């Protein structure tokens, strides 16, 4: 399951929540962070997630996929002769090419995701996962990121990179085993963008978009009649009651405009839309993700 969407919509929180949900269902699950910013680590206090599989709780694992480490691991798996590997790692051209070739980092990152999803893991003594959840890069880069294998397959035309890139492309576009979830916010432009993103993912990349999560939906705390009462209070009163009435009216206004956006998203999205509540919590830590995970049933 690949989780994507524009920046700042809560992809990481949703990814972790999906991971918790799958783990709770008894599936051995891993959440992969790809942008090397350790966002997911924030979600799990006291645990540093690096380029190794860390168990966070029962059935739930996490990894932060670092492209340099993935490249290293890839070479180790390709070249069995130690002397050759050492020479390659020391080689200036290799290091230069590895750092400078556009898209190579994305390619090896996807390669690692593929490796994690294999029933027959390439990495020695590694166990298999039932579910792999990828916290993918933001919108613009998201489409480019998922297209990388095809791009490489086209550039390389023949040879080992071609066939491996092809394998990765098939893996991403395998509708039976790989799905994409888009995370959106209930605002005008994010709704437009997620509709456009869904279109690009389906038409250009050819992946299966399974679901659109509308994140951060305000609860409907007040009715229209109540809002009228509160408007009168806000106009008449002073001090705390006035401020409280205003905050309530703010909530009412946002909840309403968000419902309108939800309706727009439902009209425009092809995949089913599922809503996730706005959490009135100062910091979105593991508890927030857990609460969301309960809403994902």
């Amino acid at each position: 399951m690949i989780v994507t969407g524009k920046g700042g919509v809560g992809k990481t929180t949703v990814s972790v929540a999906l991971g918790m949900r799958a783990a709770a269902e008894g599936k051995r699950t891993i959440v992969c962070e790809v942008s090397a910013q350790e966002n997911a680590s924030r979600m799990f206090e006291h645990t540093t997630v690096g380029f190794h599989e860390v168990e966070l709780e029962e059935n739930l694992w996490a990894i932060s996929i670092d492209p340099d480490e993935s490249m290293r691991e890839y070479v180790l798996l390709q070249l069995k002769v130690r002397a050759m590997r050492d020479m390659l790692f020391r080689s200036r051209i290799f290091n230069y090419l590895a750092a400078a070739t556009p898209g190579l980092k994305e390619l090896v990152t996807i390669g690692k995701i593929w490796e994690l999803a294999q029933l027959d893991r390439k990495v020695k003594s590694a166990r298999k996962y039932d579910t792999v959840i990828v916290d993918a890069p933001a919108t613009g880069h998201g489409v480019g990121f998922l297209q990388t294998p095809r791009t490489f397959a086209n550039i390389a035309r023949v040879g080992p990179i071609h066939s491996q890139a092809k394998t990765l492309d098939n893996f991403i576009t395998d509708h039976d085993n790989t799905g994409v979830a888009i995370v959106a916010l209930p605002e005008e432009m994010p709704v437009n963008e997620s509709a456009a993103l869904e279109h690009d993912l389906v038409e250009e990349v050819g992946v299966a978009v399974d679901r659109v999560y509308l994140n951060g939906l305000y609860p409907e705390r007040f009715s229209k009649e109540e809002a009228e009462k509160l408007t009168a209070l806000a106009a008449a009163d002073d001090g705390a009651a006035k401020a409280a009435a205003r905050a309530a009216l703010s909530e009412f206004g946002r909840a309403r405009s968000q419902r309108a956006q939800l309706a727009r998203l439902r009209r425009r999205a092809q995949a089913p839309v599922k809503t996730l509540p706005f959490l009135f919590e100062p910091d979105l830590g593991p508890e927030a993700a857990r609460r969301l995970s309960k809403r994902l049933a």
Partner: protein
Amino acid sequence: MSPKSPTLADVLDGKQVVICAGSGGVGKTTTSAAIAAGLAARGLKVCVLTIDPAKRLADSLGLEELGNDARRVDPKLFEAQGVEIKGELWAMMLDPKQTFDELIARQAPDEESRDRVLQNPIYQQISGALAGSQEYMAMEKLFELHTEGDYDMLVLDTPPSRNALDFLEAPRRLTQFIEGKSLKVFMKPTGFAAKVAGRGATVALSVMKRIVGFDLIADLAEFFNAFSGMVDGFQARAKRVNKLLAAPTTCFLVVCGPQGEPIDEAVYFHRKLVEAKLPFGGVIVNKVHYPAEQLRGDDEDLPGTLAEKLGDEDLAQRVAANFADYQALAERDARNIEHLAREMRATGVIRVPYLDEDVHDLAGLAQINRYLFATGEERVAMAAGRA
């Protein structure tokens, strides 16, 4: 917030280039458009540039679409929102691929080398969607417009990056790649690299060929050969672009949101700007929950007071609970912004409140514009006054 804290107009006084940087989803595009509109209202001829396939800028400026050429925004549209544009407001959405092609055409010594580059499969890939080229092309276009000198002020909305830092690093990565001199020597397709570079390099190359395939290596070699005539031109240009970015007439504004993660990223980005000796102008925090200052502890029995005034106990409970939620968010935002201001040693953090209406049109833009160009005190008053 001190009353002496500079306004955005003070910060931007005497500048020619403003670069709005920040991670995705923090309202960079809206902020860039509002800044450009504010400066145009003050009599400048301003152009706002974006690389934004999602057409956010076009949407928020009321334009049907934007292209690689600048378009003038109809001042009447702003007038209708109570903003008088004394100068001129222009906008463009740049097409990275087209900009890159134009750059190649300009740098190529002759038509043949131009076509060799344009038709190379590797060039076709890097000039399109791959990370790095967008950022580089944004700077390139900025430089071009600045050199032409048609505008008093250029406002750049940086591309939506995974990480704001990509914007600073990508051009360097890309130029390094294009300039790959050492590599070029090793990868001559004729294979006499061994004589030049010694045995180690050749063996490494043959190992690489085994992993990646000969075609790819050959394409790369061809790519570097095709570029060879342009490397000096690119280097010279990159130097001038960097000089523009570091000029005292340029100003980087960091845009972020009030949550922990965007704040941490903004702090990190600021540090990198300082390290790179790039001119930092200030920080804008969007969607801030303003606290209702007179409140906490003011009324010990808020639910009771509310129940009395509303004549509905259940509603009063909900209003009080909702208020407590909002206050908690406002307190969090205040804490985060204080941390941000301390880390950046910024005198005036510009806080744009979380407006009740979703900002996606000119009315919203005009509202954001008023907050951006107000003094700190005015902003607090405006936030308190809105219903």
